[in-house]
């Protein structure tokens, strides 16, 4: 149901029945290692290309989530997924092997929340009884898309970010027994914001205004105060973008307690892991939300969170042609149903 200009509320409370996260070797050394369902100790993951490994982690995340929901693939009506590789082949190839009717999404690193918003909308409006949604990225496969070869000895600036090898997936259902379960209550769809930044090694700086825009729209549409949420988490703004967003929000009169304002890209790795500004990639927010954050909610640490996944909608071609970086952010609120 539309509320305000660009938000949906979900009065039927779609239930996140189960979720799963899969990570790579670098994530296994990170802060949130214990929240992953599967951790690979090798980037190749037994495959002969990184792209196949990329497909594998999404398959595993989806299959694990379905298993944890005590369902089979046949019980699921639709799958919504996306990633950052050309023509989103890892997601489509995973959909091929999983065999669930499929929507391929592209919202760069905001795909995780684009998927969850659409999944919740489908469930809320009786478009399906059970859907699965996910997003993924693989460090070597994505760096190959957007950057120099992985073994090339270039010096990354301190604003650069490290692409997360990870996938996250969730099964969203119209389960009628909602008590104590995780439900999605609303979603805000972001508009594309371009503040003229063109440095692909500074994604956080480029994405911050889109995150601020969506957060402001969310609270305006839903007529809520930021204190409503126990935690507001951005996708992968990292060290540069995260404080900028906080400042932009403050300028617009939205005072968010900095203790309650986190970023997936800053949560996933240890301080001594050399990732420059922090983590990024479509799998970053997906793995952190569907692994760590939902686990914390199940433990009762948070009752209501808002996840704002941010994406930079550039291509290697567009930045070589000196185009600036258009960015987008989508927000979904998740609550423990009373």
């Amino acid at each position, binding site marked *: 149901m539309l509320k305000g200009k660009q938000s949906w509320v979900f009065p039927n409370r779609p239930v996140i029945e189960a979720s799963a996260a899969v990570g790579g070797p670098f994530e296994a050394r990170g802060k949130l290692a214990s929240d992953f369902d599967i951790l690979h100790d090798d980037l190749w993951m037994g495959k002969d290309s*990184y792209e196949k490994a990329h497909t594998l982690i999404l398959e595993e995340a989806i299959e694990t989530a379905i298993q944890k929901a005590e369902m089979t693939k046949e019980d699921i009506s639709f799958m919504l997924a996306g990633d950052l590789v050309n023509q989103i082949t890892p997601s489509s190839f995973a959909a091929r092997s999983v065999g669930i009717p499929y929507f391929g999404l592209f919202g760069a690193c905001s795909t995780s929340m684009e998927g969850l918003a659409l999944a919740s909308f489908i469930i809320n409006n009786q478009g399906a009884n059970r859907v699965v949604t996910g997003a993924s990225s693989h460090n070597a496969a994505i760096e190959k898309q957007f950057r120099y*070869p992985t073994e*090339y000895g270039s010096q990354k600036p301190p604003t650069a970010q490290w692409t997360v090898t990870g996938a996250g997936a969730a099964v969203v259902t119209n389960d009628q027994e909602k008590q104590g379960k995780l439900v999605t209550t609303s979603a805000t769809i972001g508009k594309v914001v371009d*503040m*003229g930044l063109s440095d692909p090694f500074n994604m956080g700086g480029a994405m911050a205004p889109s995150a601020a825009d969506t957060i402001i729209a969310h609270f305006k549409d839903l007529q809520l105060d930021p204190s409503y949420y126990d935690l507001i988490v951005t996708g992968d703004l990292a060290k540069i973008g995260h404080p900028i967003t906080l400042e932009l929000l403050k300028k617009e009169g939205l005072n968010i307690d900095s203790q309650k304002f986190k970023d997936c890209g800053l949560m996933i790795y240890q301080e001594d892991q*050399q990732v420059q500004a922090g983590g990024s990639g479509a799998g970053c927010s997906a793995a952190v939300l569907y692994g760590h954050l939902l686990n914390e909610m199940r433990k009762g640490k948070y009752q209501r969170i808002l996840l704002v996944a941010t994406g930079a909608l550039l291509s290697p071609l567009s930045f070589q042609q000196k*185009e600036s970086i258009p960015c987008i952010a989508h927000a979904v609120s998740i609550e423990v149903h009373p």
Partner: protein
Amino acid sequence: MAKKNKSPEQKRYQQIEQKHELKRPVVKNCIKAFFVGGTICLIGQAVMYFYMYFFHFTEQTSGNPTVATMIFFAMLLTGFGVYDKIGQFAGAGSAVPITGFGNSVISAAIEHRTEGFVLGVGGNMFKLAGSVILFGVFSAFVVALIKTLLQIWGII
């Protein structure tokens, strides 16, 4: 949206962004580049003397085997995943010497191995080094042209 025509809103935002942006530590990077680059050249010099004293190369002819040896080292370090870490630390220090050139070719070859030998390795091996070769050869041609003209005119 072109870079040059910034709206007032974009300009305002970019001022805020600049305040938070972490700058490259240029002086520190230069010092690191100087020492690492110097060390690589020192090793190169040692290899050159090795060829001069143990094989019958002269100062003029020992260059080629030295370059080949240094590129071989770069290949090993790239293959074992060490060179990119040196690169992150040293920046230009490991990019400018011949080892950096070797690294750019070898890393691209490794990267595209999964796409096959012809279209993958062959087609992409020089995707970084290609422009170095092109503009290197072209600037050598321009300099040689200038020198030839000056000689014809009897200036030098």
